[in-house]
């Protein structure tokens, strides 16, 4: 299993060039990367790799990124711990509100700079609970 600072990451993008640029850049920074090119592949890889963070492109043929995000977040065993970063321009209130409804944790605007992508990824990795490979569970209050 990967070290806590570099947990497994899943990159989902139907544009292979984009996906490979992200993969190469993040691999160079020490992250183990898996790439999927559509929603079906993404869900399969999600269950196999159990990534801590998913970088998810929104515009994909078939199941789009929003649908994939919702399925991941509602996954019975992995949904609570995974962090999903949407790769899209969420330019207004309504779009961001819709993103929240699908369970997304963060977003990075497209077209993105790689350094921005890295900082976005890192701030999500920081919230990943140690030894789980996944993020912190939804907090519940105890009084």
């Amino acid at each position, binding site marked *: 299993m990967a070290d806590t600072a570099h947990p497994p990451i899943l990159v989902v993008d139907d544009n292979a060039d984009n996906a490979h640029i992200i993969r190469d850049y993040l691999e160079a920074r020490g992250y183990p990367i898996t790439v999927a090119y559509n929603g079906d592949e993404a869900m399969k890889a999600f269950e196999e790799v159990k990534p801590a963070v998913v970088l998810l492109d929104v515009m994909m043929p078939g199941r789009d990124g929003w649908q994939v995000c919702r399925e991941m977040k509602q996954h*019975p065993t992995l949904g609570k711990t995974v962090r999903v970063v949407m790769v899209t321009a969420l330019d207004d209130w*309504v779009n*961001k509100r819709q993103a929240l409804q699908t*369970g997304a944790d963060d977003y990075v605007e497209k077209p993105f700079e790689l350094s921005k992508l890295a900082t976005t990824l890192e701030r999500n990795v920081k919230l990943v609970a140690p030894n789980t490979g996944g993020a912190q569970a*939804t*907090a*519940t209050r105890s009084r």
Partner: protein
Amino acid sequence: MDYHQLLRDSLTRLPTVAATIDSIRKAVQDRGEIVILYFNFDRYSKVEEVYGWEKLDSVLETTGEAMRAFLGKSPLASSKLMVAFPNDDDFIFFHVPQDDTPAATDAEITELTAGLKEAVSTEIERVHGEDIAALFDIFVGRALVVYNPKLRLERQIYRGIREAANASKSLEHREQAKKVSDLRETLRDRGLYIEYHPIVVTDSQKVFGYEALARGALRSMRSPEVMFEIAAQSDLIWDLSRLCRDRAIEGMAKLLKDGELLFMNVDPADFADPSFDVNTLAVKDPTRVVIEITERTAIKDYPKFRGRLKEFRDKGYRFAVDDAGSGYAGLGSIANLEPDFIKLDISLINCIDQNFIKQNLVETMVRFANEHGAMVIAEGVERKEEYEMVKSLGVHLVQGFFVHKPSTNAVTYRPPALASVPVAQEAKP
């Protein structure tokens, strides 16, 4: 999705009907009869509507655990077989009596239901807070399945489930009628008291004002959500609103210190009530009253509504948009109301420390408020991390269990007529 996941509900970890049908069939054959109990959880859809699906998922987990613990200690423990619909909010319980024991009677089920309701509600309150627990209600329907070799067993079992579900629904309807009568009694006897929940300045945590929350003296009317839901169904909204307003204003004069503001919830429908008149409200100093209007309710006649708002504004009343950001209306509709205060929707605050999109939205709202001379209130702040986050984002005011525990730190106004009504947790100023 793996097919195994269809056999067990992931939230409650209970098996589904499909997974247990074989053992149920065998039980009916061996024993000759089984009892099906259908647990219908009322208002869970409301939890989902207000707090979002993640919250209901979490409430269902708690419910499943609490039910398992309670039934495990109940007289039905030796016979229980509990199943759930995957990802739904109802539960089914197959009661298979042991050979020498008769099946549970209706009276026993009623007693069991009361205990179960108490146990689950206590646990929900402990984990998720009073507001969610107050919404909770449960109706248990019962059906007997008697083995008949002439009939296909599975069909009999599914019919039994339907019959038990219908029985629980008719109980719910009967209870509904009882609640309408409780509401009428509340209105007749003016049986309402007010809890004032503190709203504090984020940095200093000094009290800035109080939100008035109406509580019915009757146990069934304790939750304002429930009272208003029943009032809406029975066309009593104006009457209930009037009573709530009167009580909130009465208490304000007695309990609020100088400079502290009263935040009072008003339904947009109330503005159509002729008796909601700016000249007849018994408010001495309107500048100390903030009228909260929820963003959730659609406003049909916008120009007329704004006209009514202006009448109040001209007298010195201030306005707050409640549940701001809950819908898809965006910031434009908030700007139209020209609010003095913007109360963020509770779903934006829940776990805001872990969600960067929520942080971005709240930051946008604070900037918008600062540009429009309004103040942002974060309600539902329950954890230190949430408090620290909203503070760092520049949110002006905060309300929630983290800064003030419910009841113990709220100010309660109980009118003299209700002085003898017992309240579970006595409130102290």
